[in-house]
Structure formats: C-alpha cells, structure tokens
C-alpha cells in the first residue's frame, strides 16, 4: 500500500465499506480531487475491488478525478436561476471556454460545472468562481469576467 494515504485511512476502521464515501470526501477535501493511486490504496484497505470504488465515485456529483482549473466556474442550475435566464449564461460559457461541464480547458485555466441551487435566488442568475459569487449575470458581464481572468 502506498504510504501516502496511510494516515488518512487509519482514521477509519479497516474492511468497513460504509466508510468509503467519508474517505473519498476527505481525500477530495485535501487534494481537490481523488488521486488515482489512492483508489488502489482504499481498495486494499477496505477489501473491496477498485472497480466498485470507481462505480461509487463516478455516481456522485461531488467527486472528481482531475484537478479543477485555476478558475473553477460553477453555474447555478436552480429553477429560480433558470427562470431568470441561466441558460443564456450556460450557453455563453460553453462558447467562451469551449468545454463541457466536468472538463478543463487545454491550458488548465478554466473548468466548468453546473451545480444545484446556490441559495441566492434573489440575485439570479448567479455563478461562482472559486467560491466567490457573481450575481445578476448577463452574457456581456460574463464575457468581461472571463476576459478579466484571462488577462490576469
């Protein structure tokens, strides 16, 4: 077993499958994504096949296997935002960044994700970049925002 993940795994009792999701969550919190070598380490520790871990990890929205971009865009998919025009924001982001949700641009700068309601429906449509919220987005403001990050 690779020694890198031993400390983390030791916090949980071995061979208990119900700890799989908490372990994956802690890994993701630490690294921002789930590193591939960790999967085999978890498999050995919890005594389940690695394929089962992939099956679980790919099922839930939260887990990722690649690091996010330098600027991680999360666009609110809540119905409140949709009624106020988040579809325009989404299609514009698609066009500007030329990536699908879950992907990362070739230069590693931007990544994209659609997320459920961010909870600021009064300022819809909203998106968040690296956790900072931007309210009342319009395609024009979005272009300015992306340009601002590009020129940094």
């Amino acid at each position, binding site marked *: 077993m690779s020694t890198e993940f031993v400390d983390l795994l030791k916090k949980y009792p071995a061979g208990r499958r119900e700890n799989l999701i908490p372990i994956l*969550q802690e890994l993701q919190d630490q690294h921002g994504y789930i590193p591939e070598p960790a999967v085999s380490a978890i498999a050995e520790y919890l005594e389940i096949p690695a394929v089962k871990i992939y099956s679980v990890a790919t099922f839930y929205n939260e887990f990722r296997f690649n690091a996010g971009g330098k600027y991680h865009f999360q666009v609110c998919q809540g119905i409140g935002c*949709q*009624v106020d025009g988040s579809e325009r924001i989404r299609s514009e982001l698609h066009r500007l960044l030329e990536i699908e949700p879950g992907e990362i641009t070739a230069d590693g700068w931007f990544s994209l994700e659609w997320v459920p309601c961010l909870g600021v429906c009064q300022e819809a449509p909203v998106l968040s970049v690296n956790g900072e919220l931007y309210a009342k987005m319009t395609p*024009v403001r979005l272009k300015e925002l992306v340009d601002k990050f590009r020129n940094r």
Partner: protein
Amino acid sequence: METPRISEELQEGLHALITHQQPDSDPTLKFLGRSLRRERVERLTIFIDRTTPTSIYNTSLIEEAVEQWSDENQQISEVIETGCLGLISAEPVIGIQVPGRARLYYGPVEPADIAGMLDAITKQVIPEENLIGQMIMTGQQPWEDIPDWKKHPFFVNQSRTITSLNGVINPSSISDYIAWGGYRTFYSSIRNYSGQELMKLIEQSGLRGRSGSGFLASVKWIKAAGTTSDKRYVLCNADESDPGGYMHRVLIESNPHLILEGIMLAAYIIGANHAIIYTRSRYRTAVKRIQCALGQVRELGLLGQDILHSGYTLDIQLKRGPGAFVCGEETALISSLEGKRGSPRTKPPYPATSGLFGKPTLVHNIETLAQVPMIISKGPDFYKQTGTPGSTGTKLFSLSGKIKRLGVVEVPFGTSLGAVIDGIGGGTRNGRPAKAVLLGGPSGKFIPVSKFNLPLDLDKFNEENLVLGSGSMVLLDDDSCPINLIKNMMDFIRQESCGKCIPCRDGSKRIMEILSLISSRSLPENKYEALDRFKGVTGMLELAEVMQSTSLCGLGKCAPNPLISGMELFREELEEHVFDRTCRARVCLNMRSFMVDPVACNGCNLCFVKCPEKAIIGSPRLVHYIVDDLCTGCGKCFEVCKFNAILVN
C-alpha cells in the same frame, strides 16, 4: 470544527433551564433566560443574518461599519450572528437593539447606511427606509408608530411555528435555543414518559411526512418500533436536492438545535440508540452549523451514555451526502450510507422493518422531524388546531422565480395557493400577469392561475391529481417559457437518474432530445430528420406515461409530471414551438431571430464588432443588416445595442 467551550457556570445555568419545573418562578433563572433571549441587552446590539442567502453580500463590511461607528462615537456595541427571517428578497437583513427598547429589523442594508442608521437610532429617531418592523419581547419598551414586524405583508399571514426562532436566535449558540425553552421537551420526555406513551401522541397528532407523498408518519414509527432487532436507527434526510427549493437549508442554518431535538425525540420514541443526519456536503454553512450544534449538545451531556441520568443512550452522527438527487429516496439514501451507489431498491421490505444495515430505520426529512418537539410539548390536540383535519400542522414553502418577495414561508395546511403567491409573495415582480406556478420542482406540476384558490392540503391535492411536493414554488410570468423550463428540468433528471431502470434512464434522455428539437429554430433538415422530429412530438406523451407507470422509484415516476401537466396547460405555446417555431416569451435561445430596426439604427458599428459569427454586415453611420443564415441566435447584438435597434422575434 472547534466548538467554543461553554463555561461551567453557564453549563450549570443551562442545565437548570432545561431541568427546572418552572424556570420563570426562580428569579436567577428568569434573569438568565431573559439575558440569553436578549430581551434585555446592556449595550447596542446588532444582529446580522449569516446564512447562505447573504453569502453574496459582504456582511463583514457591515460588521466593520458597525465597529467603525462605535469607535468614532465611543459606544460599546456587540455584533451577533443570526439565522434568516425568511424574507430573502430583503437580504442582507440586520436587527438593531438598544438597551430597554424593542429590536428593529431592517433590510436590505448597505454597509454605507449603517453609520446614519445607528446615529439616528441612538438619538431615538427611527429611520423608516427599508424598515421591516420592530420585534417586541417581554419587558421591552416598544417604539412608537413603528409597525410590528409580524404586520409586514410577508409575515402577516404566516403561522410561524417551526421557523419561529429563525432570524431571532444565534444558530451557533445552544444557550439561545435553551433560553427559548429548547430541550425541555426532550428532558421531560426521557425522564417522565415511555416511548409508547409518546407514540400515542404522534399517532393522535396525525403528523404526515413533509417530503411530498404525505405518508402518515405514525405508521412508519409503529413499524420501526415494533420490529424486533438489536439495533434501530433514526435517519434524518437533510439532503435537500430539489433545484427549486431551499427551505430546509434555511431551517438548518437558522435553527439547527430544533432539528436535533426532533431527532432525539424520535429516537427515544422508537427506542433507537443511533441517529444519523444526512446533509449534502455542498451546503457548507449547514454542515458547519450541525457540527457545531452536535459539539455543544455533547458538551452539555444531552447526547451520549445515560443522558441526564435517565438511563437512555443516544448518539447522532453527521454524514455528508456527496450529492445526488436520487438520494432523497429513502432506499437510495440508505444505499449511499452503506457506501454504495445511491440506487433505490424495490419495496417492500420498507426501511421501517429492514433499512440501514438491515436494521429497522425510521427515515424522515428535517421538516417532519422539526414538528415533533411541538407535538410532544403542546400536545396533539393543540397541534391539530392548525391545518386541516387530514393534513395537520404547518408546511414550509420556498418562493422563487418571478415573484416579488422571495423567501421561506410557513403557512398552515389549507391556506390557499393564491394567499401564498399574491398575499405573502406579493405577486409577480414587475407586475406582469402571472402564468402558472410550478409546485414541487422537477417532480412537480404546473398549477394555472385559475386554480390559485386551491387550498394547499395533501388530500385535496391528491384529489385534484396534483403534487404538493417538497414545497418549492416557482412563479412564472408571461416572460417565462414553460417549454424551456420543462426541457431544463428533464435535462436535470437525465443527469441525476441513477441508471438502474431503463424507463427513467433512457426515457428522460429521449424526452430531453425531443424537447431540444422542438425548441430550436428551423435549421435545414432532411426529410428523415423532420419525420423523426414529428414522431417525437406525437410520441412524447406516451413515452412520458410509460416512464410514469414503469419506473422503479419516485424520481422516475414523477419526472414526467411537469411535462404532462405543462402539455395540457400550455398547449397553445407548445404548438407555437412545434409548428410556428417561435417562442412567445423569447426565452428559447435557439428560436430567436434578430433584425435591425432601420429607423433606430444609427450605424454605431458596435454589433458588427461584437458579433461572434460575423453575421452582421454594415459600416459606420450606415444601417446594419443581420444575415439570417449565418446568425446562430446568440443575442449578443441585442445585448450590446445601446439604441434598442435590434428587434427580436
């Protein structure tokens, strides 16, 4: 997260407040309670809402403004965080209280306004701008000519019971909750009553699950308590994933201890020693609040071995959900807790007999469990006074969409839909005519304006074949396109379908494809593509019905609800999309076509420069022209034009 340690002296006081027969008869306890409830404050106190809806505003700037003002005026002030009153369209909301006087609530507040407001209020002059109202507590002198906050149109018709402390107390402090009578019910229950006695109360109260199906709670409870097993679980589903709703999150963030007390009582009644709260890890503030609350409860000895010498042992664990809509279904939720994919399984056996790790498990969402302390403390007869005979108590709704006053509301069952939308919500934001309400998010149905007098009642809704759902209300006005909304929700279902059963997995994908085709402009298509499109249109309803009748779980069964109800209600608009290929609300992006108004265009050349497809021809000071075949309908020209010279069709 480290929870602040509670001093031993305070711990003693809090224990006394929980265990004393009548805390108000003891002068020391009465004084402690009043201070902790902040009925009396010794200095200027500012209450700032620190929940997710305010995350977009920099509330620390407000705090800084308060500090700066205090320094300049040599006043001592205190800032206290609170939960959310519920009126989200007025965020950031702050409360201001000077010693001896009632608390004033304002919103929305800008950091720049703070100094002026504090100046005025300390001079006993009340600025009326953005005032929500005053909150008068016992022993406080009310402000003259200032309306009570409960008279505000948003609050006046609400009946706040489980949300009564939201926005009033500090959610990160257990002493606030205890001072308002918290955990007293739990203590007296475990000391004086048996689980069976209390079960009778739940049975008599007619409590029904708030998750949508409205299942009678006591049936589950009796089954879970009656199944022989060495272990039992109470599972609190706080994994609110409805993309249109946020009432559960606001409740956790504003009053986490109420949820804990509900869980503790439920666990005691069914005889469980383990309970789990499952909340989504994206709700970071909510997770933090629960962690903090659990730490404080353990510190006070309200959880653990032999709670307050009653012989009862209970522990509550917090599990973070990694995000899946289908985990709202109880069997999927249990799979997820067992470390598996969150796929539902067939029922029976129901979780009440064989749930988590095969043990009897009581699964409820937080809103249902939050009702329990009140049922036990006030008794089922009192509880049944609110609501209707079939659906007792109150229900939380979250208002969003094109509504004037957004927020979380709590009304008794039986209130009419119109009273909530037009009365509490204030109708549409721009005064435009309302079109319909989508009740229940992606599993809900559209309700037209003509049915706004319908009472919000579980039985009545079943009769009308409607869905009350989790309680998210999204108002559409005539500027919104229902077809587009249905398409987006179907896309959401497609992403969130667990993939176990074919009707849901493939049906949602196919319906999404059909809806995308009918909400796009007429592109050159060969005859087979046109045939395919029409085949889709004619078969869509049948496909939806197949999905409804053959899917395994509630997610798939309810997924076609918006489509079926929308097709019936918005027939005309759907046909416009299919035959005329126009969207009257101009929302469907691919359907818009643009034209230059030759009179208004002054040839500023801006649209020419900005057009990403180079579909605009023209030169400075000449009227421009949009080439329809090149135009992709992105709408950029429309947005940049300063002279309103771009017409949309």
